[in-house]
């Protein structure tokens, strides 16, 4: 039996790159009396409030982004656009017999590992236009690029925690291994393109935080290190979870800038046009950019806060709803609500309508299976994205739980 479970875990890992998402989004019907439990979950999703799937897929996976899809994306931006990609996975071993502390006999311990990869952006319509159409259309006018943000972060965590025997409360402490952070926060960036392009002025106020530029940000690269806390609690048929509450200290070759400045760009100054070299051009061009200080900085972790109702597995129909938020990730509060239908003793279906995160209104579907010591679930977080050409994202959550 152990072999079977291990194989299933392995297959799951292979299929989804050991990526997982917090199991809290998955309905967990029934309670067993196991001696140990393995959990693996993965979440892979991307979405945008204005970019359609064709646009996002070309952005992420390659391809020429043509004018037609750029036009559609631009039309959809009202005040701000939002875009994000999340790739998270967790694996966890829970010892259901033993406890770490004698004074806490009602708590078992668990050991977990997780990886969190997030690229996100919020942007104004002008910033989108400037990036994807160029600044020419702003000749003799200002493009409002500020109040925009781009964050790309990746970290792993190794967790040791306690979980109550009734599985209603858990605490975890994690060592955070920071792989990458590239954070650009433009509080203000008004760019004026002078007539005929003779000058470009930029009224800029922003913060730039960059981790080790020599590192590729690959798995466990230790560009930074920190501490994280996890907490979950079930109360009154609801469950609240706080994941990755903590910080990372980025000290290895990290660069930082917090600048408010008026730039007037009228060309890269070169000494002698007749003898210019590409090195001189590059050096002088970089000198124009905000000066990046080589100094350590601290960032808060993109903490995930989730609140949902707990499903009564005995009911045939019942409502479900959930709220999720992720700080410092350009994330819009996420809500979903819908129904859970118990098809039979081992099989559930869920349908919800959702809004927030990185996408707009969308439908979600989920299917869950429970048989003996094996539970699994699959959810599409954006069914409309799958079926509709103009969908603005896709997402998948998987959950696998084995006990024995």
């Amino acid at each position, binding site marked *: 039996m152990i072999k079977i479970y291990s194989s299933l875990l392995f297959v799951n890992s292979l299929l989804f790159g050991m990526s997982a998402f917090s199991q809290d989004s998955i309905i967990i019907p029934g309670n067993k009396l196991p001696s140990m439990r393995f959990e693996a979950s993965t979440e892979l999703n991307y979405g945008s409030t204005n970019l359609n799937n064709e646009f996002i897929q070309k952005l992420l996976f390659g391809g020429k*982004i043509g004018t037609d899809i750029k036009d559609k994306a631009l039309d959809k931006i009202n005040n701000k656009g939002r875009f994000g990609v999340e790739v998270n996975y967790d694996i966890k071993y829970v010892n259901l017999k033993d406890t770490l502390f004698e004074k806490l006999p009602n708590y078992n311990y668990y050991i977990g590992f997780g990886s969190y990869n997030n690229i996100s952006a919020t942007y104004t319509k002008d910033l989108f236009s400037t990036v994807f159409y160029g600044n*020419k259309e702003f000749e003799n006018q200002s493009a409002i690029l500020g109040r925009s943000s781009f964050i790309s972060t990746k970290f792993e965590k190794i967790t040791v925690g306690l979980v109550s025997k009734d599985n209603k409360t858990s605490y975890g402490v994690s060592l955070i291994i920071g792989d990458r952070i590239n954070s650009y926060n433009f509080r203000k960036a008004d760019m004026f393109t002078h007539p005929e392009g003779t000058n470009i002025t930029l009224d800029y106020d922003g913060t730039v935080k960059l981790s080790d530029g020599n590192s590729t940000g690959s798995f466990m690269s230790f560009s930074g290190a920190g501490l994280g806390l996890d907490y979950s609690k079930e109360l009154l048929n609801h469950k609240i979870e706080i994941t990755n509450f903590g910080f990372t200290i980025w000290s290895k070759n990290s660069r930082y800038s917090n600048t408010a400045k008026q730039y007037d760009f009228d060309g890269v100054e070169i000494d002698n046009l007749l003898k210019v070299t590409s090195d001189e051009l590059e050096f002088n061009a970089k000198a124009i950019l905000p000066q990046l200080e080589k100094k350590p900085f601290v960032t808060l972790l993109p903490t995930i806060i989730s609140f949902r109702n707990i499903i009564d597995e005995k009911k045939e129909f019942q409502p479900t709803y959930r709220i999720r938020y992720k700080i410092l990730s350009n994330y819009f509060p996420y809500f979903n609500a819908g129904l859970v239908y118990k098809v039979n003793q081992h099989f559930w279906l869920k349908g919800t309508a959702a809004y927030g995160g990185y996408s707009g209104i969308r439908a979600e579907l989920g299917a869950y299976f429970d048989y003996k010591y094996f539970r699994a679930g699959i959810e599409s977080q954006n069914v409309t994205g799958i079926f509709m050409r103009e969908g603005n994202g896709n997402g998948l959550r998987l959950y696998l739980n084995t006990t024995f």
Partner: protein
Amino acid sequence: MTKHLLFITLTLILLFNCKRKEDTSWDIDVLSPVVKTTLTIDDLVEDSILSINSDNTVDLDYKFSFSPINEKFFLKIPDTIIKTVYGFPFLSPVTLSPGFQFVNDPAENEFDLGDAKINYMEVSTGELNYRIESEIAEVTFYTYTILKTDDGSGNTFTQTISVPAGSRTSPAVVSGTFKFDGYSFDLTGASGNKFNTFESIVLVNIDNAGNPVSVSNLDSIRIQNKLVSLKPAYVRGYLGQTSFTDGPTANNFTIFDQIISGTLDLDSVNIYTELKNYVGAEVQVKMKQVISTNTATGNNVPLTHSSIGNTINLNRAIDNGNSITPSIYKIDYTKANSNIDLVIENLADIMTTHVEASLNPLGNISSGNDFLYFDKVIDADFHINLPLKFIANDLRLRQEIELNIDENSNPVHEALISIYAENGFPFDADVQLYLLDLSNNIIDSIQISGFIASAITDIDNKVVSPINSVLKYAISAKKMNIINENSRIILDIIFNTNSTTHTTIYKDYYMKLKLVTDMNLEINYR
């Protein structure tokens, strides 16, 4: 449905497990300044030839070394072989005890230096190759000493070599090399009144720690010493009489090499040839011809001057111990005594020279007190001191520019480029661009509208205020493709001064240029 789920799964697997197979790209229109620069006379002319006068006028001091009269024409030390066979005058075998010295052979050896009579030499580099064959049935020690030598620290050249025991049928053979670098040689022989002669001694001993050995007239030691590749740094004595010819030699003449057409009328030019003799001997030089050639026009202008074809006598230099005072001979060229104005205004890129020279034409008149430092012999330099005061008429300067781009590295599809110029020079400038094929043939051009207008000048033709101009040119997608394929363009700038009188260029004149592009380009990342 299945298709969509499959799509999601595959794209997610691609996202997290596979490399992207295609770049993400899109096109944007950018309107932006790109580069700016301020050109002054410092930027237009090499620093090495630029000379600023106290009144801020500018001269070009161009020096052109036109005759490689160097050490290769002078004394050469031939490789010298010294072979010696040492035998024993004993018909019956005689026993030699350990330590016995059976060869002690002083000798004088002479370098074959022709009519030169050298009494002192310092060696720059050189070596002694030796080969010793011994039939003595015991270890012997061979010591070779060259007397009256000095390594600079008071040490005479002496080397000892251990030669193993050999036999008549199987002689022991030892060979090797010793360096002579830095040694000085007294070449006056043992008597001190010879020349080209060095004195050496060969000593051969039986090994002190060896055994008695029996030898007879049938046994011998054969020694060959070869002095190879001796390059002197300095010699003293009589250098001999030699003569040599250099040329006709086509020399690159770079001062005007970017000018391909037009005329340049110079207000004045100070041109002279300076011959400097650093040799401690008399030298006669004859400049047989100096020809100015403009390869673009094919026009040749031979220099006419009284010095051409006639002998010039250069006195000997003076050796001060730590320095040499050369004898200097200066030939001034003026419009009055030559056609030098035509030579210069031909805007040559090649200068052909033909020179003859002879050493010690009057023989050994210094009683053997000639000297020669081989790193400094005779300089022959053609100097042009050219005040930048001229009339330029359609003076076209051409520069070929390697852009180092190709289809993959150049993201620009097409561009409209504007050059904003603030011209503080008293001349107009037209700009033309030509596209080249892979064989460097001009296959297309880029039409440029506008020109850089001359600055406003006063009655003395001095700049009082700069003038702004705008040049615009469009590079279509088709022409961008040609640039991407060949990566080379030709930039022609055609100058016209704004006055019929000669225009003076001052140090503080400048031209500000700003390049602004309105371009459609591809953003691309993998």
